[in-house]
């Protein structure tokens, strides 16, 4: 069952319209919320006039933050999964992030909430609220924000809110020894995760049980529970967060936003169910974005293509509130060298506040920036030396003989980055073969003679995943033999209900159809973390495995007593428990579960019933990797890029379900394609959002996505019982670098591509200025 491409168990409800997303939650007496949001990127809120709004038909209340003491609360300063153990950071200044600020620090920041009998009436109420602002000068880019005379986003706090540095080897010496020194400025844009479901939250105070029920689109539901319980001074158990059917996450929903907390607080006070669903426009303006990142990189190399050293300065826009300290830049650093040896590296990074909504991870989370930098560096060395880009890569590649290989970086969990049991040259060779690299190099010349511009781009990535601390799982068998798996993680489409069931079926010997997986509800597991950082398969997957093995042990012990055989003779298959070789002597998982309720033998097996809870703690992250090769044709008249061939070779350890792995890669690739060719959050100088809708922000459509040639290579990891690695954030990392390189190559070296996205107009502009 493990490793089989079976259809998904969760699909039935989604294809019939029976899924229950947060906006589908309807409760008797429900009220609806809509937010009044700042029109300015930086302004004191001098007065909020709610009188007219209160008289709008259907409006029940207008909340401005003064009504109850808990509304003066702040969001937790740092998100749960940040980098407290990273040795790189030497300063972080966190600024209190109020639920209802006295000063708006970005366009779309929440100022007041209208509560009404319908969502339409709430929107009417918002229109009727009058806000008096005292506008202040705003800064919307790091370049402006670091100027000495720049306005401060937070009074008395420097706009540079965090700093890091790290050095491996002797960079000065590398540059002294260099035969070639290259310098580049690389720029990647701020992005929106752009799940098709926007954010939403619903809440209901349940008087009978003293429980505050919260339905949320949050990826980390336990973090939300802690925040709400903390502010309301309730036991964590009295807050139940349900985050089950979620319409895509990709990082943006892995953050606590003010609304996630405000709505439950108001529902608790009003004692009425309350729901808020974000509009796309609110999403584009007020929800988090990934933050623009600029790299100034210097490279020391030899004329034979050997890279001696790299000196990197990183500037990152983190928005008005930096809830992730420098996590994204740390990810960039720890994924920076990808498959290659850079013996001497120095990095220095600055997190710079701007008058925009806060920054947070988007799928890839700093890896796209890392890969774009490393591959652009390798290609620059190829150009400077006249070597083929493949040869430059082979010159610097980490080989199996170098394993275990340490590149000198320290991961976010404090453990040194170590590659082991990976064959990077094999991945490159496979990609080269699949792409028919030599053939396309020849064709490139022929086509060029015919006036056609063909280019080839190569990119390599690594993906650390399976970040701890841990996840748990409870596996239980009921008296009918049905198996329930409970986990502390939730799904935004990752197929957990299927893959985790496959693990359980494999470990327990139960039929897959009899296994249900439940997650995304804090009442299921007392402690859990959530879904992000490509961590579920490794953490929750291995926890399910361990719990299923523990239940199996109980089954075997009980069955050997009942069937009168040794434990070694007990066999379990398809829910039938039998004695090896003796076919007539058998029972079922359900029958054993029934007997396990009252059988005294269970006293020595952990108590009644066939149930076990186990946690899995990874030693550190796992390293997935891959190589992409793109062949593109650029239309010099229009700037249009046609992808003629795209090869994606990758390893993610043993696949739990190859169909699901394929889906993760293809979906991630498409997000990378968007980053390559058009996605970009745009602010003007005043901090107004110019990418305020899906008319203005590019998202790939079906017609834009090329056929992908996928090649799965498997290097199992010895670091967990299942031999699995992560795959969720593999897809988007390389497409921007590979496609940018291919476009540069197609243009015959006339221009350098150092900025993403490479839009049609950017290509035309580059061609004109060359």
């Amino acid at each position, binding site marked *: 069952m493990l490793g089989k491409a079976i259809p998904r168990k969760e699909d039935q409800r989604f294809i019939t319209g029976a899924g229950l997303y947060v906006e589908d939650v309807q409760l008797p007496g429900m009220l609806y919320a809509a937010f009044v949001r700042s029109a300015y990127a930086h302004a004191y809120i001098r007065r909020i006039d709610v009188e007219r709004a209160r008289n709008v038909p259907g409006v029940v209340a207008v909340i401005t933050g003064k009504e109850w003491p808990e509304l003066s609360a702040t969001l937790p300063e740092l998100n749960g999964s940040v980098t407290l153990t990273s040795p790189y950071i030497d300063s972080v200044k966190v600024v209190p992030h109020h639920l209802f600020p006295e000063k708006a620090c970005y366009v779309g920041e929440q100022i007041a909430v209208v509560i009404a009998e319908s969502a339409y009436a709430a929107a009417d109420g918002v229109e009727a609220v009058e806000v008096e602002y005292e506008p202040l000068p705003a800064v919307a880019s790091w370049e402006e924000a670091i100027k000495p005379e720049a306005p401060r986003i937070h009074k008395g706090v420097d706009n540079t809110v965090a700093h890091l540095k790290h050095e491996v080897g002797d960079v000065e010496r590398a540059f002294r020894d260099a035969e070639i020194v290259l310098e580049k400025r690389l720029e990647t844009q701020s992005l929106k995760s752009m799940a*098709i479901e926007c954010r939403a939250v619903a809440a209901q105070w349940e008087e009978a049980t003293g429980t505050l029920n919260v339905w949320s689109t949050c990826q980390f539901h336990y973090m939300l529970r802690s925040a709400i319980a903390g502010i309301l001074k309730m036991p964590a158990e009295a807050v139940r967060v349900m985050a089950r059917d979620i319409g895509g996450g990709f990082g943006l929903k892995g953050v606590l936003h003010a609304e996630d907390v405000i709505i439950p607080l108001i529902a608790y006070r009003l004692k009425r169910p309350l729901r808020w669903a974000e509009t796309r426009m609110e999403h584009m303006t007020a929800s988090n974005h990934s933050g623009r990142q600029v790299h100034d990189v210097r490279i020391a190399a030899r004329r034979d293509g050997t890279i001696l050293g790299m000196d990197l300065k990183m500037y990152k826009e983190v928005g008005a509130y930096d809830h992730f300290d420098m996590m994204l830049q740390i990810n960039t650093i720890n994924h920076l060298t990808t498959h290659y040896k850079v013996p001497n590296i120095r990095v220095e990074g600055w997190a710079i506040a701007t008058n925009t909504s806060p920054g947070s991870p988007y799928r890839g989370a700093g890896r796209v920036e890392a890969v774009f930098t490393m591959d652009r560096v390798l290609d620059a060395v190829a150009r400077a030396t006249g070597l083929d880009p493949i040869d430059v890569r082979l010159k610097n590649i980490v080989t199996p003989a170098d394993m275990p290989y340490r590149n000198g970086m320290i991961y976010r969990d404090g453990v040194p980055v170590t590659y082991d049991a990976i064959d990077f040259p094999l991945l490159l060779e496979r990609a080269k073969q699949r792409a028919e690299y030599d053939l396309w190099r020849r064709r490139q010349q022929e086509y060029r003679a015919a006036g056609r511009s063909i280019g080839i781009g190569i990119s390599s990535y690594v993906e650390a995943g399976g970040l701890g601390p841990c996840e748990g799982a409870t596996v239980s068998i009921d008296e009918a033999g049905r198996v329930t798996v409970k986990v502390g993680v939730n799904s935004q489409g990752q197929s957990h209900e299927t893959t985790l069931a496959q693990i359980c079926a494999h470990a327990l010997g139960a039929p897959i159809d009899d296994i249900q997986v439940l997650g995304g509800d804090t009442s299921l597991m007392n402690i859990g973390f959530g879904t992000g950082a490509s961590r579920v398969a490794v953490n929750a997957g291995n926890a399910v495995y361990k719990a299923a093995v523990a239940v199996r042990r109980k089954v075997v012990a009980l069955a050997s007593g009942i069937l009168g055989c040794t434990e070694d003779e007990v066999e379990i298959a398809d829910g039938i428990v039998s004695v090896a070789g003796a076919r007539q002597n058998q029972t079922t998982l359900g029958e054993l579960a029934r007997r396990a309720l009252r059988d005294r033998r269970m006293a020595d097996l952990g108590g009644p019933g066939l149930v076990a809870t186990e946690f899995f703690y990874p030693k550190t992250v796992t390293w997935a990797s891959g190589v992409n090769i793109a062949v593109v044709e650029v239309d010099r008249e229009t700037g249009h890029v046609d992808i003629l061939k795209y090869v994606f070779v990758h390893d993610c350890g043993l696949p739990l379900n190859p169909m699901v792995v394929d889906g993760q890669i293809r979906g991630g690739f498409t997000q990378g394609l968007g980053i390559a060719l058009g996605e970009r959050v745009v602010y003007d100088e005043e901090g107004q959002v110019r990418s305020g809708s899906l008319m203005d922000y590019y998202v790939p459509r079906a017609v834009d996505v090329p056929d992908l040639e996928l090649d799965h290579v498997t290097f199992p990891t010895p670091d967990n019982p299942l031999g699995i690695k992560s795959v969720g954030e593999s897809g988007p990392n390389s497409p921007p670098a590979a496609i940018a390189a291919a476009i540069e190559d197609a243009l015959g070296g006339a221009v350098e591509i150092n900025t993403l996205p490479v839009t049609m107009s950017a290509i035309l502009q580059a061609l004109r200025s060359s």
Partner: protein
Amino acid sequence: MKRTISVTVNGKVRRESVEPRLLLVHFLRDVLRLTGTHVGCDTSQCGACTVSMNGLAVKSCTILAVQADGAEITTIEGLARDGALHPIQAAFREHHGLQCGFCTPGMIMAAKQLLERYPAPTIEQIRDQLDGNICRCTGYHGIIKAIEAAARAMAEKGQAPTTGS
């Protein structure tokens, strides 16, 4: 102020009194509680709200409920018959045409229209016809495979796609 409309939704006549400004998608979701039809944007880009109205795929966020007075509407909830999935629904499951499932109802309703227009579509026709529907999870690969497979399944059954409900 309110107006009474009569709309046949998934074969059932529904008479309701609605505000003239009520969007069809909110009529379906909030009044009829058919929440399978989703809202993913506010500018008619994403297609998550696609339903069939008088046999044509429409974005129900771009039509007022009062404009649907007298119309026949099929939503995702009305596609399966007697517990049997429509071939398009079955093909989406078989070919991993969905991950989070949020765009899926609109995507399936758009696919239904597509197959009515092109019973044996080429891949190019499929890609082209899906221009009004955004999926952020799948990269469209499984969706395209599913629509190709559904076309084959419907042809084998001799079930020429028909319009309306």
